[in-house]
């Protein structure tokens, strides 16, 4: 029984990225982070522009 179970376990370590794949993944991650940051900033600026002075005019 235990022998059968151990046979079902993968013996290989799974996906192992090469150094080049790791380098490209890191570049993609940085680009995505920067893009999201710029998007957040843009949405903030556009929101302020659209609301104008009304951005402060709200009930407390």
């Amino acid at each position, binding site marked *: 029984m235990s022998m059968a179970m151990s046979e079902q376990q993968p013996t290989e370590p799974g*996906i192992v*990225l090469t150094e080049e794949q790791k380098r*490209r993944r890191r570049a*993609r991650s940085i*680009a995505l982070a920067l893009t999201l940051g710029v998007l957040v900033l843009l949405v903030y600026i556009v929101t302020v522009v659209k609301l104008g002075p009304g951005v402060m005019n709200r009930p407390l």
Partner: protein
Amino acid sequence: MTFASEHASLDPAIPAGAARAEPSMAGVGDYLALLKPRVMSLVVFTALAGLMLAPGQLHPVLGFFALLCIAVGAGAAGALNMWYDADIDAKMSRTVGRPIPAGRVQPGEALAFGVTLAVGSVVMLGLMVDVLAAGLLAFTIFFYAVVYTMWLKRWTPQNIVIGGAAGAFPPMIAWAAATGGLGIEPILLFLIIFFWTPPHFWALGLLRADEYARAGVPMLPVVAGVAETRRQILIYSLVLAPVGASPWLLGYATWAYGLVAALAGALVIASAWRLYRAPAGDVADGAAKRLFGLSILYLFVLFATLLVERGAAAFVGRVFA
């Protein structure tokens, strides 16, 4: 041996031999290439013209945001086009180096990238600028990615004629973003790009006819032959010239634009005529190349003149107000 074939049987839920995605080799540049930056630059330029020519005052930040959404939407359509056309791209020297056929980007990555940007650009344009503009952008992406790429391109030699509408929409989208509506002027801008597309792409098609035939794409030179393509190019050039001058003819632009449009139109017709009359061989290839280059210059000059005219009018209006 690939990762997929090595590991296909490790997971019992996945039958042996089933395809699995390789770890991505995509760089940031590959994702940018999926957006077709050269097409995107033309889209931004023509959309800018639509934005600047529209009456009313759209805040510059909102105008920039609208252009960004239109550019990203166009890029999304380009990514979806590359995803679907990867099999064709792999057979043509002009496109074999694109990220998917070159193996750097997985098809699924391109699909996810395209869909995400398409939805994102449309939603942001609708929420932040104008709902009509967002609807037009959504229709444009659908028209390019589904109607042109999935249907027309592999089915009819009129593919780039009808599909050219997708490339002609950006000035209308920008106009709608600025005004919340449409009018005759943006329709004229649409028509200029629409009638410009066939001579532009068929000139390229003549130069790449063998590759299109090998890839099974029914471009006009492949289906109807070189002579008929040259005739069609000449006909569309004859239609394009007056359409190009129509903003002046209908009173939306000054005589200066009319003069530029008439001269540029005459040059395009002359170039198309030389191609029509050229003997086969290198002379014809040279004529097609010249027409292809001239057509790009034609569109740039017309829209740039409209932009300069509008800028000059605004400056004069401010000085003498």
